[in-house]
């Protein structure tokens, strides 16, 4: 089991030595069991850090903001940012490194292993507790979590409340790190694409109907895009106005920007948004599951990305986020690549 005190010790040491600007980790929130992203700037603040099965967020996303902030400063602090990452989150860092979005010395990686378990799915836990409020949740021996409710402590089997992606996880321990807390090693998973089975078994018309129903719920709040660490483009296809505008951008350039989709949440526009995003993430998505977690309408967006992940593996033997040196999936080819689908 990962000891929280060890994590705090590492964080404190790194801050005391002045090695990092600040550390992004999971902070105790004043309201309930879920932590919040914490920005620890001094050794004293390290006490706020937590490590529980509710540490769901992918903190790699905040490197995107950090980069933006740095580019606006006149004399930026050149030190790296400390970042607490789980196995899946660390894969996001590898993709960022692969794409040269960040340099290795921009980030000091404090890796934390999920060991035999993982993180929870809030809804699954709520169902399991049948209305009792979860005030706190902790890792317990091997395959259990201990949940504190107003009526006392409850032991819950991890397999019943783990997030779907943890059940298909390929990297329960960080694959890139400066410091590693917890046991290394990959947990064996018999079927990493099990969650796709149900939907893949449906005939094409059923699948089309399913997605039409689901995507018509979308309100285009763009939370899925906002939370994804791989969606870091300054100007996104979904944006209808130019963001990268300077004093020298001509009126023609602004006027000629193509509007790929309307702002209206019509079925057609929602399809364009989600499918384009899924394709832009092909070979890049590392299945942190955040997109699905944040969706207020519970749209199973993860399936789209998972399916492309499966295709990437089966067609091209490509897995995102394990090797920062590998070329990107869609901008490279090998002679052995399958061609049977090219007409």
């Amino acid at each position: 089991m990962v000891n929280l005190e060890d994590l705090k010790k590492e964080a404190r040491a790194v801050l005391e030595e002045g090695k990092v600007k600040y550390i992004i980790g999971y902070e105790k929130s004043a309201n309930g069991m879920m932590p919040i992203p914490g920005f620890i700037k001094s050794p004293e603040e390290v006490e706020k850090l937590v490590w529980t099965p509710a540490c769901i967020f992918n903190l790699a996303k905040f490197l995107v903001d950090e980069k933006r902030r740095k580019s606006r400063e006149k004399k930026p602090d050149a030190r790296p940012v400390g970042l607490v990452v789980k196995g899946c989150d660390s894969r996001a860092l590898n993709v960022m490194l692969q794409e040269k979005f960040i340099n290795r010395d921009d980030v000091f990686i404090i890796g934390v292993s999920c060991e035999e378990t993982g993180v929870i799915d809030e809804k699954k836990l709520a169902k399991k507790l049948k209305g009792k409020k979860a005030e706190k949740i902790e890792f317990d021996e091997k395959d259990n979590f201990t949940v504190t409710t107003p009526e006392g402590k409850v032991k819950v089997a991890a397999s019943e409340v783990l997030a779907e992606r943890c059940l298909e996880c390929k990297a329960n321990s960080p694959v890139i790190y400066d410091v590693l807390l917890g046991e290394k090693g990959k947990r064996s998973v018999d079927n990493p694409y099990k969650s796709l089975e149900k939907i893949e078994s449906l005939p094409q018309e059923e699948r089309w109907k399913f997605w039409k129903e689901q995507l018509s719920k979308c309100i285009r709040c763009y939370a899925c895009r906002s939370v994804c660490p791989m969606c870091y483009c300054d100007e996104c296809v979904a944006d209808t106005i130019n963001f990268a505008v300077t004093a020298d951008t001509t009126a023609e350039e602004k006027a000629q920007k193509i509007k790929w989709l309307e702002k209206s949440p019509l079925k057609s526009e929602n399809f364009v948004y989600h499918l384009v995003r899924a394709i832009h993430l092909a070979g890049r998505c590392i299945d942190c599951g955040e997109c699905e977690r944040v969706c207020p309408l519970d749209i199973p967006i993860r399936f789209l990305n998972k399916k492309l992940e499966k295709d990437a593996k089966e067609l091209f033997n490509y897995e995102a986020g394990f090797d920062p040196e590998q070329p990107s999936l869609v901008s490279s080819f090998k002679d052995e690549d399958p061609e049977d689908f090219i007409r």
Partner: protein
Amino acid sequence: MEKVLDKKSFPQWVKQLSSYTVYAPVQEDEVWNYEVITNPENIDLDFPNTVLSPKKIIFPQREVYLEFSTSNEDGLEVKEVLPEEGPSVIFGVRPCDARALTLTDKVFGGDFEDVYYWKRRNQAALVGLACLIPPSPNCFCLSVDGSPFSKEGLDVLMSDLGSKYFIEAFSKKGEELISIAKTLFKPATEKDKKELERNRAEAKKRISRQIQNIKKIPPMLKGMFDSPLWDEESMSCLRCGICTYLCPTCHCFDINDEILSSSPLQGKRVRTWDTCQFPDFTMHSSGHNPRQDKASRLRQRIMHKFQYFVERYKNYQCTGCGRCISRCPVGIDIIEVLDKVSRYEG
């Protein structure tokens, strides 16, 4: 008008309202949302709050303003497109959501009344459902001048008394709804009224969260425009639109032209929800953006709700539904932020 209605008779009441378009909360997977009810037998009022408030029926996410086309002889033609005629009734409106509509009424009324909003608003009758138990652990309606059984904005209020509902009507529209099925309703007895009072006293106690010192907040905010607090609180904000899209009082929108064909020109001018939290909301054509950073946008949301709106309309622009707290992807909590505001020194 005070009556009681047996819970078993409730679907009957809905059946009698066949001349209305009936909306009620419907569950799909784990999510509750207001949909048109086609089968009154399926109406179920045992729900926590919906994800999107009934604002989406009165102020839909997409509203067509007009259609334009160039026909050969007459040149450019512009045609107004109004919402469909026909009365509607919305069941299961929580008091916070109904109160929120009275706030958006202030914005869409006044000078230059918004024709589309008012057509839908005037056609709709709102039947509320009082909250015995807070629908969300983050409810705080009491702090913002609301209550779990407030009647503001409602035509009828239903309160759960176990095997029956206590029914109160406050307007002609409400009384009409009841008189359509008047045989189903019985007069309320003293016993009923006593039970109602008891329930309401209990309901108030169950609201666990509150904004401390809320009266201090508008004057405090006035002096906090340049405070570093906004930078700290917005560090984790992801600039999505969840807080504002789910908020029952938020009303910002965008107007765009959607072209169906360019030659001959044919298209629609459409209004869609927008949010001050998107970075392009205030961006000028020149690229100048008065709210370029997250801190200024979080500040805008908080100050608009708890200072500007108060100065202009004498009401907090928040009814304590708690949706923004429950669904923020990074746990930004408006009650926590306001707490820090009320304790701010500097």
